[in-house]
Structures are given as structure tokens and as C-alpha cells.
């Protein structure tokens, strides 16, 4: 036996000992590829999904037609993924942003002096536009497949609420760069709220934190954008995903 073979064997044994040891088997649950003796068996394929807190959003088995990319186009999953990307880039951007008169200067600094600042800002902005689009396409796909029908009626309602929250998130984020584009787009949008019968003026005042878009509006939109709406949307997303499972998974083939 050559030295190289022996080295290989020792390494394999050490790896097995580590992967079969107390630490790894307490961290990873049965069926994990990181555990010793993982083989590709139906049981382990089930365990991979069941024994991971993220993957267990999926059922262990899905209808065959649901796997075809052309059926769902992955639009629901992509919406969720874009939300995650926006959360991470958003948190990063927050470290360089103050929701005051300094907001515009902060964005300028971000674009010019912070490493990757411009890229991350672009990702956040285009990602937000993409998310509006993808959520809307997801909704259209669901409509054309008639997937809103019993027993999925209520999940459609939640879906519409999620689209609304996505629009609100995008709209409140629109003001944050505090440039002419931001302030006037939000003014146009906020003025629309003023046309609501009876309570229009109050709604507009509440939205703007005053009579027009000022730095008070900026702070308000900032908090709505970074925490209030995300908090709400995460709750609705949890219910949405959960209902998909409970209502019998993806809707049947056409």
C-alpha cells in the first residue's frame, strides 16, 4: 500500500469519524448529506426536505406537473427570493443612510466613496422593480391556471394583500434618495390619497406627516419602508406559504 493510499484511507476514516461523531450528528438531522453514511435513497430524499427548517416549507413530494418549469415558471419562489435579496441589500444600505436632510448627501457618498455602494444601491432599486413585476406575473399565472378556486380562495386574497404590500414597500422606498424624482413622485402619489372621500385630508396628513412632503415625511416613509411593511409582509408571507401546503400544494394540472 503506497503512502498516498494510506493517507487517503486515513483521511477517509477521519472524515467518517468526524461526520459520524457526536457533534455532527447533533447538528445535522437524519438524512443530511453532512452525516456519515448518506446514500441517495427515497427515505433520505424525504429526510432532506423534512429535516431542514427552510426546506420544510416544501412538502416531501410534489405533483409531477408542478416540477415542470413551464408550469409555474418559479415565479412564487423568485418573489420570495427577491424579497430576501432586497432585505439583505437593504440592511447594508441602511448603514450608510440617515433619514434626515442628510439623506441626499448620504446617497451621493454611497455612490461615490463607499466600496460597492453604487452596485448595492442599483441591486436594491432594480430588484424592487423586478419584485413588483415578478409578483404581478405570479398573480397572473395563478389566475390563468384558475388556481384561486376552492380550496384556495383565501390564499388568493392573501396574495392580493401581498401585491399591495409590495407596491407600498416600493412606493415608500421611492422617497428615500430624497432627490427631485423621489419627492415629486411621492407628492403625486400622496395627493391621490387626498381624494379619498370624507377622510382624504386626514389620510394625506398622516402619510406626509404634514401638508406636503418634508423631512418628516422622509422619516415616516423610512420607518414604514425598513421595518413596518416588512414586518407585516413577513406575517402574510408565512400565512401564504403555509396555506399553499394546507390547501393541498400546487393546483392540479390543467
Amino acid at each position, binding site marked *: 500500500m503506497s503512502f498516498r493510499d494510506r493517507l487517503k484511507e486515513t483521511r477517509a476514516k477521519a472524515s467518517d469519524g468526524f461526520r459520524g461523531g457526536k457533534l455532527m450528528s447533533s447538528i445535522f438531522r437524519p438524512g443530511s448529506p453532512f452525516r456519515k453514511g448518506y446514500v441517495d435513497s427515497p427515505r433520505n*430524499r424525504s429526510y432532506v*426536505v423534512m429535516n431542514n427548517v427552510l*426546506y420544510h416549507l*416544501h*412538502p*416531501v*413530494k*410534489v*405533483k*409531477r406537473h*408542478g*416540477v415542470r418549469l413551464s408550469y409555474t415558471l418559479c415565479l412564487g*419562489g423568485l418573489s420570495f*427570493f*427577491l424579497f430576501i*435579496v432586497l432585505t439583505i441589500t437593504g440592511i447594508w444600505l441602511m448603514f450608510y443612510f440617515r433619514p434626515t436632510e442628510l439623506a*441626499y448627501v448620504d*446617497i451621493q457618498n454611497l*455612490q461615490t466613496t463607499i466600496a460597492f455602494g*453604487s*452596485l448595492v444601491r*442599483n*441591486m436594491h*432599486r*432594480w*430588484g424592487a422593480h*423586478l419584485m413588483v413585476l415578478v409578483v404581478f406575473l405570479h398573480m*397572473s399565472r395563478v*389566475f*390563468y*391556471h*384558475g*388556481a*384561486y*378556486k*376552492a380550496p*384556495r*380562495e383565501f390564499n*388568493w*386574497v392573501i396574495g*392580493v394583500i401581498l401585491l*399591495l404590500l409590495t*407596491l407600498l414597500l416600493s*412606493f415608500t422606498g*421611492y422617497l428615500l434618495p*430624497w*432627490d*427631485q*424624482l423621489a*419627492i*415629486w*413622485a411621492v*407628492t*403625486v*402619489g400622496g395627493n*391621490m390619497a387626498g*381624494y379619498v*372621500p370624507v377622510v382624504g385630508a386626514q389620510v394625506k396628513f398622516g402619510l406626509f406627516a404634514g401638508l406636503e412632503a418634508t423631512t418628516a415625511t422622509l422619516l415616516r416613509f423610512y420607518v414604514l419602508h425598513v421595518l413596518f411593511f416588512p414586518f407585516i409582509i413577513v406575517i402574510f408571507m408565512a400565512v401564504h406559504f403555509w396555506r399553499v401546503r394546507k390547501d393541498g400544494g400546487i*393546483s392540479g394540472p*390543467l
Partner: protein
Amino acid sequence: MVDIPEHLLQRSAEARAKALGISIEQAMAEMKGQSDPTVISKEPEVKVIDETPTPTAETPAPPPETSAPAPAAETITPIKEEHAAETTEKVAAVKIDEKPAAAKPPPPAKADAPDEVDFAPEVKVTQRLLTVVKAKPIQKPVKEPIDKVNTWPHLMLPEFVALMAMTAFLIFLSAILQAPLLEEANPNVTPNPAKAPWYFLGLQEMLSYWDPQIAGVMIPTVVGLILWMAFPYIDRNPETHPSKRKFAIMFYTFFLAGAGTLTIIGVLFRGPGWNWVYPWIDGIWFDDLLDWIHFE
């Protein structure tokens, strides 16, 4: 005591009456404990059990239990309640298919789907046969077996590829397209035109036709929210194939085309004073787009 549904009791009483040669009312009274049980003079004929009922999740049928104080040799009591709880409504259908030739000692058959931890202990026969209910399924299983595949790897791999593709696309887009940043906000200088974000430009376009109370409030609230949310409750047609729901498809497509047209007009064809312009003549007045042209 488990509450036995009337129709099961009835069927059980019929069988008992036939076996013992007594009236159905008498059998029923015995089974309810209102009368002394008839003494069985001959060995009761044991019937064949073809199938135990398989309740579905949506309309759960009560467990088919025949419990009675009368002398009985055997009952079939699938313990389903617990199990249904664990399997998230999917009841394990336990199927027994046995054809004993004769029954000197009646063949005991016990189907048991126990709880997660309660391993089935040694079965002790504590009851004797009252009667064996002829097994007509309480409800026929009508669902077809569904063709399913393992999520891992058949769904999760395509998903992973889609996520990676989306990430690559987003990073590529962000590298070549610079997000707009105009001059600092100034409430005293109104740009002409002042446009909303693109997803609201359809609405803004409508605002130029109708009264804001209608175009800005009524339409988005009633059409955009209430009608959309209520759609599953309005559309009572249970079909899902497009050819059988032409109206719904047509409705949505019209809506899509209308919203798309309005948005495109708002983004591209509106200039100063919200007047009609041609983007190839007068340029694009949507600030976002103006800036996109300056590649990084």
C-alpha cells in the same frame, strides 16, 4: 364512550337481527344496552371483511366502531384520531383482505395505526364478537392516485438554478444600469411633468381623463382591491381548464391589456403639461428612463 353514528348502528343491528333471527328493533335495543342480550345458541357465521372504510381528509367519516356491552368476540377498531393528527389530515388507510376457509376459531384481525411513540403492545382480546358489519365503504374513495415526485432533487434543483439565474441577472443589470439620482429634493421647483413610479403611471394617466374621485380613488379601491380580492367568491365556475372558463380569461386579459396600455402611455407618451408626445421625436419624459440611457 364513542358516539356511534345512527346509520352504522342501524346496519349493525340489521346484521345482528339476521344472524340471531330476532327483530331489528330488538337487536337495536340490545346494542344500546336497553335490553338483555339474546343468548347465542349457535356459532355466529362470520362474514368476510373486504375493506375497512377509508375516510378522506375533507369530510372525515366517523371511525367505524362497533362497541357494545353484548358478548362479542372481535371488533375492528382502527385508531385513527391520533394518527390523523400526526399525518396532518392524511388518514392512513389500513386495508385488510382476508378470506379464511372456515372459522373454527374466528380469525382475529386487528389493524392498528398507533401514535408516534406508542408502539403497539401485545394485543389482548378483551371483547367477543357482537357482529361483523358487512363492509360497504361508508364513502367510496374517489380520488385518483396522483403522480408525485420527490421534492429533493426534482423541485429543489430547478429552483436553485432559477435563483442563481435571477441573482446573475440582477447583478448584471445593476452593473450596467445606473439607478437615477437627480438634484436634491426641492419643494419649490416642480418638474414638468411630475410622474409617479411606473407601476402607478396607469392610474396617473386615468387621472387625466376623469375626476380624481373616480380615477384616483374609486377605480383603484373597487377594481384594484375589492374586486380582485373577491374574485374567487364571485367566480363560482369550478373548472380550471382555459377552454371552460373563457369569460374569466377574457376578463383578465382585457384588464391586463388596459392596464398595460395606460402604463405605457403614461411612461412613454406623456410630456410637459401631460400632453401627448412621441418618445422618438421629443424624447422620454419619465425621469427614470432618461437616466437609464446613461450607461455606467
